């Protein structure tokens, strides 16, 4: 049989239409499309795609089941290793992970692993999610701090092993960045809710409105009988550039902008009570995935012009290619080699202009990307009435500080490859350890920690059984 050189294309909302709504951009594969795409998989005897996956999903296995139209089996295989497939199918950077390793990708387009993953998860949701049988309870309490991707994964895995798992979440809804950060049009919140409910059905308890370090401490949790604790509190503290005028009205951190829209549903104000500003001309500073999310959100909020301002070039930006393409299709302007140096406000304190300087690229920096070097005298001004600063986030120092954990640069918690921290019985994983990274890496860290916690708990409390 001749191999189809290209992925079955994904049907999606027309850019002109979709910038007027918050609905998901791709429509998802139909069964027919999924089966045809699954047929492209070579079923390699030593599949490199699995190695490319931070949680090691049996990729050829689940794709084979799709090809054979045994969708029940496909989702079962998926969920052996991945408890959140509807999410990872949508937000994983497959192009640098599984799909990058795909053998087919050497000559043609790789298999659309992510799309198949989302397909099979959505197929199950339509049919009704099957809850696996509960294991024999081990009667050992484990606490997870943070209900984001790392914590949810760690909790799901430990629960499947029989531990009594409680997640403590500081916000009023679980999901972490999946809920407050990633916009509806990229990851519908109904899907996050569905995946979180699945984890609850596994037996995991989620207690919202608990800020560990304030409402309770890690010591309190140990005193209450928790035998092991996993910290997955992410990198939630926004970074600012510390340039003049940055506190003017109309200047948001991407975190605030996205939290208002996604978690608080400000895009449905006044039906929902949380307000948000609608800038006519918006500058988004930075060119990572969060910047793309913020820019595309601003467009949907009704901004006339949205610009992404980045100090390096297209080549060095960290946003996924797919997100960049989506943003460009939707009409977002990109200003490369440009750095804001100060903001100018009107008499009431609202931002009205932004002074920027042009850069050229110099030698590579520690990230391996060429460093931007400002060109003296190249300052110009741009008219803006809203700015969203999306230059990255750092871990919130609260948990590490109140737990007495060793920390490193930018306040990351120091943990070994299994997530063990400097304190016995305390693991950490995800962005709090790596600094801002991806959902799937956080999930991988949660998974690894769960295995190591299991080993530790069995040795210590169950005589190695």
């Amino acid at each position, binding site marked *: 049989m001749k191999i189809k050189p290209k992925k079955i294309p994904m049907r999606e909302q027309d850019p002109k239409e979709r910038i007027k709504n918050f609905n998901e951009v791709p429509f998802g594969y139909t069964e027919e499309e999924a089966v045809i795409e699954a047929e492209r998989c070579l079923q390699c005897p030593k599949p490199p795609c699995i190695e490319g996956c931070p949680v090691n999903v049996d990729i050829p296995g689940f794709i084979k089941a799709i090809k054979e139209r045994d969708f029940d089996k496909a989702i079962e295989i998926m969920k052996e290793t991945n408890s959140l497939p509807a999410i990872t199918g949508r937000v994983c950077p497959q192009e640098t992970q599984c799909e990058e390793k795909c053998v087919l990708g050497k000559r043609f387009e790789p298999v659309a692993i992510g799309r198949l993953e989302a397909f099979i998860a959505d197929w199950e949701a339509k049919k009704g999610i099957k809850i696996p049988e509960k294991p024999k309870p081990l009667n050992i309490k484990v606490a997870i701090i943070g209900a984001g991707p790392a914590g949810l994964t760690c909790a799901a895995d430990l629960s499947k092993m029989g531990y009594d798992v409680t997640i403590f979440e500081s916000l009023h809804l679980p999901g972490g960045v999946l809920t407050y950060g990633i916009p509806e049009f990229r990851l519908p919140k109904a899907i996050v809710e569905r995946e979180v409910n699945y984890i609850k059905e596994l037996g995991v308890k989620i207690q919202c409105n608990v800020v560990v370090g304030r*409402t309770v401490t890690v010591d309190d949790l140990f005193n209450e009988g928790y035998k092991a604790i996993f910290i997955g509190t992410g990198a*939630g503290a926004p970074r*600012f550039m510390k340039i003049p005028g940055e*506190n003017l*009205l109309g200047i948001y951190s991407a975190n*605030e902008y996205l939290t208002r829209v996604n978690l608080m549903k400000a895009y449905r104000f*006044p039906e929902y009570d949380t307000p948000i500003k609608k800038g006519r001309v918006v500058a988004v500073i930075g060119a990572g995935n969060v910047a793309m999310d913020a820019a595309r959100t601003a467009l949907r909020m009704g901004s006339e012009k949205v610009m992404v301002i980045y100090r390096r070039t297209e080549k060095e930006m960290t946003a996924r290619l797919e997100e960049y393409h989506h943003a460009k299709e939707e009409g977002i302007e990109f200003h490369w080699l440009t750095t804001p140096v100060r903001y100018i406000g009107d008499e009431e304190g609202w931002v009205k202009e932004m002074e920027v300087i042009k850069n050229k690229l110099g030698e590579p920096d520690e990230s391996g990307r060429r460093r931007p070097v400002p060109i003296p005298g190249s300052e110009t001004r741009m008219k803006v009435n809203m700015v969203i600063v999306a230059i990255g986030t750092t871990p919130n120092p609260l948990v590490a500080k109140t737990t007495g954990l060793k920390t490193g640069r930018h306040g990351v918690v120091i943990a070994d490859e299994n997530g063990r921290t400097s304190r016995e019985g305390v693991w950490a994983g995800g962005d709090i350890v790596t600094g801002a990274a991806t959902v799937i890496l956080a999930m991988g860290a949660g998974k690894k920690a769960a295995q190591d916690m299991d080993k530790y708990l069995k040795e210590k409390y169950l005589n190695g059984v």
Partner: protein
Amino acid sequence: MFKITEKQELGPKVYLMKVKAPLVAKNAKPGQFFIVRVYDKGERIPLTIADYEKDEITMVFQTVGLTTYLLSKKEVGESVKDIVGPLGNPSEIVKYDEGSVVLVGGGVGIAPVYPIAKGFKEAGNRVKVILGARSKNLLFWEDRFREFCDDVLVTTDDGSYGRKGFVTDVLKDLVENGEKIAQVTAVGPPIMMKFVCEVTRPYKIKTIVSLNSIMVDGTGMCGACRVEVGGETKLTCQDGPEFDGHLVNFDLLLERLRMYKKEEKEAMEHFEEKEEIVHED
């Protein structure tokens, strides 16, 4: 869900509510705040903790926008959707060998001053309290302060009770009459705190203020509550809420508090329909 166990109207548009929030009550310390979300579509707003005992916290608020308005419509036995706290750093309570601690509470700011005053008294300080309100019917808790404070001085803007004038007039008199003051802590409207700082500045009296910035999460995640202190940007939720008042840029604070004035008005236009939802929720 957090159950309301007590509700009082302390004055026109001023309410006291006690809510069952065991973990918040257990860990609360003077000076800290919490975030409340009244119902499913509600906004998260910060309120200072006015008191706490056993498994209950006390909040005192004035209805100024939709959220406080909806909160005021809740009755005993009903619940609010979310409460998270205690947040922010507790007041730094020390024992001064010399000089008294003067606490200034203006409007609903009187309430959060209560645990702070108690803290300073329990630490062994001489504690004087200045309470200010626009009018007599807006003043509350004078008796509660009299129970333990060394002096309670009351002022109303319109002179309907206590001395006519502002808290700053009373504070100025104290300072000028040679009262030895080790520290002033002021909680109230930003403009009041700003002027309190102007009274104490020439005398270099340590002056702490508790800021009421706009917040979303209250844990350091959003950066909405940025304030300028000593020329540096700080987060009220994470670095505060108390700061050295002489270093605070109050004009910026006042500007940033006006950010959603237009939207607040728009939101209020929908209060009638929301009032019903709130009770169902």
